[in-house]
């Protein structure tokens, strides 16, 4: 158990020290977070809704909805 905790602690400190010692990496991470925010909290929430889920009540209705479209 102690050995397990030690490995987890070493992994934790490996990442912690790595992030702390970053220079250019800090700017890059900032860009990554801004990008992820735009993607998931702007685009996904407001623009990219699941079209089939929006037009059907449940999973069972989806095949019929698609079939109607494909055979129109």
């Amino acid at each position, binding site marked *: 158990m102690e050995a397990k905790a030690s490995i987890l602690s070493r992994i934790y400190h*490996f*990442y912690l*020290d*790595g*992030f702390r*010692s*970053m*220079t*250019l*990496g800090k*700017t*890059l*991470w900032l*860009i*990554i977070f801004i*990008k*992820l925010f*735009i*993607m998931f909290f702007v*685009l*996904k929430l407001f*623009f*990219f*809704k*699941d*079209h*089939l889920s929006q037009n059907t009540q449940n999973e069972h209705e*989806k*095949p*019929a909805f*698609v*079939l*109607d*479209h*494909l*055979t*129109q």
Partner: protein
Amino acid sequence: MEAFDLSLINWSRAQFALTAIYHWLFVPLTLGITFLIAIMETIYYKTGKEEWKKMTQFWMTVFGINFAIGVATGIILEFEFGTNWSYYSWFVGDIFGAPLAIEGIMAFFMESTFIAIMFFGWSKVSKGFHLTATWLTAVGSNLSALWILVANGWMQNPVGMQFNPETVRNEMVNFWDVLFNPNAINKFVHTLYSSYTLAALFVIGISAWYLLKNREHIFARKSIIVASIFGLIFSLATVYTGDESAREVAKSQPMKFAAMEGLYQGGTNAPLVAAGIMVNDNESDAIHNKKKLIASVEIPNMLSYMIYLKGGEFIPGIHDLVHGNEAFGIMSASEKIERGTVAKNTLNNYKLAVKEGNTAKADSLKAQFYDPAFTKDYFKYFGYSYFTNPHDLVPNVPLNFYSFHIMVALGFWFILLFTLTLWLSLKNRIADWRWLLRAAIISMPLAYVASEAGWLVAEFGRQPWIIQDLMPTMAAASNLNSNMVQATFWIFFLTFTVLLIAEIKIMTKQIKQGPNHGGH
């Protein structure tokens, strides 16, 4: 065809193309530069010389910038599948979902773990462990590409599936057929090798800039040697795999191949067009918007040799594929439309039988889709049922012709460039060849042009299909508000442009600081 909103479809396509093109600006460099870094670190591991460690760390920083700006841009494509291409996403079922899920898991676990060791582990883990992590980052990123290209290969040549009218999905029946689809394998190796070529040109271009500025001579010359060897091997391999890929396209997507070659009238002695200019052919009414080649450089009879490795074999042109050619067993597009309509009517009758509660009839109609003869004679042409005019089956010929020929021409230029840079670097004379150094810098954006041109051929050549012969692009698009798609297109355009400027600025600053600056 009239039932579909073409404005919406075109905006959805434009949006997807913009996202894919932008995403592809980052991917090939990642695929290739990780191997170059691994090779440099291996030399450091073997020799213990600090200059190789410094080189490894500098190119790792460049890779890190490219990776950070490009990471997760592919997720937007997955958003678009669910929103803009929902019918397609449903229709492809687990065939598309499974490879993408494997890719996501592999990318997350392999890349995130080993990249962290690459960047944070220099003084924390042993040299051997660090080197292993670097190689695994390279292998992991390349394996991620495999799954994406398997999914894409299936769109070009659908295999290993069975259509189920009850779920309205293509269900995977043979994973190995999907994985080892010749189209997917050819696409995978061709894409990887061309990406290695791009990465080598990137390293040579930046190193050439240092030499022009009279800086970092040893670093630049050694980087050029490693990248030139790597680039020369894989640019030659790109030619070989491109040839294999063209052979596969000629068999599974003959219309795309004819468009790439600008071949309207097929024959047993079809020439290979090395170069040419396409203009409108106003005299012809056999094919709508037909073009003709002027000032072309042609190699007589070469197409048969290229595709079948022997002369005298028939290569169909666009005219043959639209109007049919009985003598060579080529079915006309009208016949395919009729067969596809039979499949669609059967599916429609199945739908009505289910709605009426006529289980016996529904089961009987469903069984037809599991009959190999029905699949081969009718369902195979299902997508043709959406067309009334056979001429709508012809892709944009000039776009395919020029994209293909630009890609090929640049490929041969890169081989020459690698040969020269390698030879002159080994002779330690490269710094004197200023024009070659300038050409190497100019070749960096040209590598991206070639890479994107390859994708244009792959994706525009497939049109009007999203899944070859099974689903046209127009039937795949969701019925959204066209203005909403336009709005997101411009949001993407702005976001991507800002990100690209950010990358170029950060990258330029880092390159100007040079390999002695250090720090990640």
